[in-house]
């Protein structure tokens, strides 16, 4: 019986890191109507940044917590620079052009990462207070995974508070739901877009740092995460942060179901999940019905 609990908790931990990665992507889409493929690059730079800052030192050192603060901010600055120099020119363009531009950025950042961090697999030791495991119902479960679940919930609450309780949050929601209202309220729209994109990049960097102790940090990390983040955002409904949370859980459960019942077909399950959801609700679970 215990392994179902362990399986569920590990699914929850996967959902947590997926949510933090997807939240930035869906927030940027909601406010700016841009699907940012380079979001995967920001995630990878977050993870690589963590390996640089923490290095191979023993788990005891506090360098991980320093990285958890510093690296997302650095990635946020990179995001702001990208938004100001490149994305500002493509807001008026159609979806396809925006996709191709962000894909071009994805390719550029991919090769730069190879130059900066080389091609070797790297990894970050699990940070000290959470290095051990806790026994739950007879099974062993890593403490760090519990930390990741907690961090995801914290990010979710922080985003909820930002969107519901702050003037910036009101403007972001206005950008998502009713563009005309935004302009009429005298908002500095370009500054708002830069802010939202920077927040999106920071979330991607944070997700990267969080994931570094869990997996190997190597080239190709940006491609694998962007596909999962896309699927989670679409299932939840593009533009809805709450939808991203639900989408992350749906994907984690489908993955687990695949593992338990049809291991050899497991990689196909996330695509089946996406097709099933979109067949029932063509604009995602919580997405705004597009006319």
């Amino acid at each position, binding site marked *: 019986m215990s392994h179902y609990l362990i399986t569920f908790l590990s699914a929850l931990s*996967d959902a947590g890191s997926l949510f933090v990665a997807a939240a930035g992507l869906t927030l940027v889409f909601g406010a700016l109507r841009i699907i940012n493929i380079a979001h995967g690059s920001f995630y990878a730079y977050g993870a690589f940044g963590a390996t640089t800052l923490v290095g191979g030192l023993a788990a005891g050192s506090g360098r991980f917590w320093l990285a958890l603060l510093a690296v997302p901010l650095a990635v946020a600055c990179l995001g702001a620079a990208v938004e100001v120099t490149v994305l500002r020119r493509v807001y008026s363009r159609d979806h396809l052009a925006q996709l191709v531009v962000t894909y071009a950025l994805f390719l550029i950042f991919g090769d730069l990462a190879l130059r900066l961090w080389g*091609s070797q*697999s790297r990894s970050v030791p699990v940070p000290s207070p959470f290095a051990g495991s806790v026994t739950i119902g007879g099974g062993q479960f890593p403490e760090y*995974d519990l930390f990741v679940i907690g961090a995801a919930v914290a990010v979710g609450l922080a985003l909820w508070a930002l969107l519901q309780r702050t003037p910036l949050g009101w403007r972001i929601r206005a950008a998502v739901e009713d563009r005309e209202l935004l302009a009429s309220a005298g908002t500095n729209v370009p500054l708002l877009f830069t802010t939202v994109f920077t927040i999106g990049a920071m979330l991607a960097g944070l997700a990267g740092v969080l*994931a570094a102790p869990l*997996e190997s940090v190597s080239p*190709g990390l940006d491609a694998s995460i962007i596909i999962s983040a896309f699927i989670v955002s679409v299932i939840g409904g593009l533009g809805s942060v709450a939808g991203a949370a639900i989408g992350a859980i749906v994907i984690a459960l489908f993955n687990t179901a695949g593992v*338990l019942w049809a291991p050899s077909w497991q990689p196909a399950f996330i695509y089946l999940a996406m097709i099933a959801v979109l067949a029932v609700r063509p604009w995602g679970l919580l997405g705004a019905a597009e006319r």
Partner: protein
Amino acid sequence: MDTMHRWAKRGLMRRFVAPAVAVCAAVVGVGCSSSAPSSSPGPSTGSSTGAPVTIGVATTLSGAFAAYGIGGLDGIKLAVQDINSHGGLLGRQIHVATGDDQVDPAIGETVTRNLILNDHVAALFGSVSSAVGAAQEQLAGQYKVPIFFHLANDVGLTTTTFNKYAFEFSPNTDMEPASAALYYAREIGHGPVRIATITPDYSFGLDTVKAFLADLKKDGVTYTVTDQQTPALGASSFTAQIAAILATNPQYVFAGQYGADLVTLTKQGLGLGLFSKAKVGGMYDLQVLQALGAQAPAGAIAWDRAPFWTDNSSVMKSFVASYKSVYHGYPSEFAIIGYSAVQAWAWAVKQAGSFDGGKVSAALGGATVATIRGNITIRACDHQAEVNEEVGTIASAPDPTYGVTLWGSDVLDAQSSQIIEPCS
């Protein structure tokens, strides 16, 4: 001229003739850019001394498997550097041309075709992925250029798509699991024992698990397979698969993952208690052990095609020293195999007294060549090098001389004769 007619004519001019002219320009451009002087492929085999001879390395230099491709390339470059410092081959210096296939067969084919036809390479060194390798093998056969596989080791390369210009210098996907099975059998005895497997969901991973289970039975072990997981290649999380495997409480686990995937699988397995509950085996080579650092799972079973640290011969010692002096790090197994493949090619060129692909391949088939991995015999029937595979267990502390946690002292040197399939 009524407005309608004039409008139509102008409109059409834009929509058709402009792009039409552009298309023709592009085609003509194509003609010039890539049609190098269409001399016959392959090097000028005459012994015009002095003109450098090129060898081509078409491998993966970007993406998730870049570390493997670059590792092999470093070994090959070092071998060429050593040859050139001793006066080159037949009096001619050797030059290395490279190409990045980005693990995509179509790109791999383009890059390989370009090395053959534009760089006139005298020999080719194959890719990381077997799918790309198979496409390269066809080209090598078509243009009569010897191709040496030092990374891709799918048994198909020496059977289904084999031709006489292809040579496999790495233990193939039959030999590697057979060596692992020998070690497991030595550990287990006759059993009965409970085993689970987890491997990436593509041909290499699936073939490896199938061969391992078959060889284990052949080595007299009775076992029951409790679970078989096949996560996607490059998946970011194996927690669900590990939890499912643990639920069937196996005594032994066989992992087909390698490189970045094996690092991720190990870190997540440690957290879920996989290594404390079962004896896990995987391809824990230098790159994986360096990435894991302090998290390397002591006591886990590890196999590797050419680990330098288990070979105490003076030849290997000096190779490791010279590699370290050039690359400021230690050689991966692919650097070692790549280096030995170049040595074999050089030997065959001297033997045949020419760079001609046909002569070199004929000279090498069935021959025994001295390399940094000792004397290697290349089977005449399928050009599979009769090489050993090393299997051991991960040490509990970093190696004093190399500063990385490597293997313990008890290492099985699985002889090629024990693990190779007879000629079909």
